[in-house]
């Protein structure tokens, strides 16, 4: 490939993969059988020029490849503050990746589509939450691939044989023990997002192993944990004893080695972590935002009965971010109609962090997503209140922030 026999695009992509193998200190490359490309996020001229350079050289992906969120909701951007210039350039970037033969999934939750990998599969995934989910919850194997490299791996089908691709590098390093955290709190809708936000800070780039989870978390709770831990920290793989596939026991999660370090997490730590996710101080509320990572069918199903027959306050916007595929699933399942009747808007294939959607009068947000809560203050210059899904709905109806604190205070 390096000699150009597979065309100039493969040559360019392989030259980058090989230079990166040097950086990683890899002695060889290995095959992958799937990729997820985060380079789809349009930032400006450089990301567009990179995509169009590859596409114009005739790049084709060598393995089944899903695409992460783009910079624009092609059908809905005119309802928001997106400029026509941004929309046009972001759409050009989408087209460039579609021309390479990737599947237009346009989602940051590709593990909830038909492109979900299987246990043990060697893959090259970008998007921090998706990397953590694929490694930890599914047991597929990916390094933490950055934008611009993910597409090069997809085009070549090859990656440096290092890091989390190799079984011995997947052992836990840090033991995180939950001490005195009652079942009632673990069953709370916000618990795994808050825990992920805390564990990301504690772990940094170490592989954490959680002990003391007594509930069976839903897939969307693990998704919330992964997204939070990959935002506040650098977590690409975590193990939860008795829950995730490489952790039937604590001992197995550490591959029978001793933890490098042990940290106890108490109720006080969790209350602190939850407090950090809220940067707003009053009751004012301009918008409720759900869906980072993208809202799943199960989440649409959970939202529908909460809003059925109700109507949001006229001053408060209510936005759900998801993918075109998932919206169709929700519509088919009959759970979309009550959400739309409530006055919710649905943005597809992107999110408020990846597309400059929000008009300047939107100053205060409320969300159940730790990832939105983490990034919105810096990226959007907004203030955020973190709460449960039910809190978000109730607040949207009342037109001011309302949170049920009972389980967090009493526990």
């Amino acid at each position: 490939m390096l000699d150009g026999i597979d065309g100039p695009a493969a040559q360019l992509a392989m030259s980058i993969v090989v230079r990166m193998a040097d950086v990683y200190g890899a002695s060889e490359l290995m095959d992958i059988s799937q990729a997820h490309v985060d380079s789809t996020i349009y930032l400006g001229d450089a990301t567009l020029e990179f995509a169009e350079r590859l596409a114009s050289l005739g790049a084709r992906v060598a393995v089944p490849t899903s695409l992460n969120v783009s910079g624009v909701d092609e059908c809905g951007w005119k309802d928001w503050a997106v400029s026509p210039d941004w929309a046009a350039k972001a759409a050009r970037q989408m087209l460039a990746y579609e021309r390479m033969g990737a599947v237009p999934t346009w989602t940051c939750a590709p593990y909830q589509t038909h492109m979900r990998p299987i246990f043990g599969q060697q893959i090259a995934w970008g998007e921090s939450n998706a990397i953590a989910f694929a490694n930890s919850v599914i047991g597929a194997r990916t390094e933490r691939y950055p934008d611009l490299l993910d597409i090069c791996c997809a085009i070549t089908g090859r990656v440096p044989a290092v890091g989390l691709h190799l079984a011995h590098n997947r052992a836990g390093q840090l033991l995180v023990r939950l001490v005195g955290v009652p079942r009632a709190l673990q069953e709370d809708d916000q618990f795994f997002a808050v825990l992920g936000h805390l564990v990301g800070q504690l772990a940094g780039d170490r592989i954490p192993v959680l002990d003391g989870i007594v509930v069976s978390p839903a897939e969307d709770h693990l998704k919330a944990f992964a997204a939070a831990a990959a935002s506040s920290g650098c977590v690409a793989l975590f193990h939860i004893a008795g829950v995730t596939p490489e952790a039937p026991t604590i001992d197995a999660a550490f591959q029978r080695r001793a933890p490098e370090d042990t940290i106890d997490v108490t109720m006080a730590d969790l209350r602190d972590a939850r407090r950090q996710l809220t940067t707003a101080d009053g009751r004012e509320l301009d918008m409720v935002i759900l869906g980072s990572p993208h809202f799943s069918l199960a989440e649409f199903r959970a939202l529908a009965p909460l809003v059925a027959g109700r109507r949001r306050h006229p001053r408060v916007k209510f936005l759900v971010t998801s993918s075109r595929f998932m919206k169709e699933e929700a519509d088919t399942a009959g759970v979309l109609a009550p959400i739309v009747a409530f006055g919710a808007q649905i943005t597809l294939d992107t999110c408020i962090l990846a597309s400059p959607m929000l008009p300047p009068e939107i100053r205060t947000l409320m969300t159940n997503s730790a990832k939105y809560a983490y990034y919105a203050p810096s990226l959007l210059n907004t203030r955020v209140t973190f709460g449960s899904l039910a809190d978000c709905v109730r607040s949207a109806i009342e037109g001011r922030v309302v949170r049920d604190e009972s389980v967090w205070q009493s526990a």
Partner: protein
Amino acid sequence: MIPGRVLVPGEAHGEALVTTDALSFWGGYDFHTGQIIDRHHPLAGVCARGRILAVPASKGSSTTTAVLLEAVRAGTAPAAILTTGVDAFFALASIVADVMYGKSFPVIALEPADFASLVTGAHLVVDRDGRVSVS
């Protein structure tokens, strides 16, 4: 003179900007200005454009590399990045900037003890062999 491991070679000089906290460039760096904008980070509000940024590692978003590529194109990137461990994200951004625009910046990994000796404000020189010196 501090010896470092060259991840991406190059020469640079400038004022050191040192932090012990990892940084996500997505949500953390405004490539229009070169300012660090992550409100969780101790360097929030500081401009890193043209300076030698010493940061242990990247964290968070996969899009850090793309933000850094935009910064190189816009002329708002740091002059060099010094890390502790091998940070593939910073190295990749520099390698792709070289491929796309012929403009790379040095990325050098230092031993933790050497990294700890760096101080903000010192004038640093980075050479092609990954040596860092105070001038």
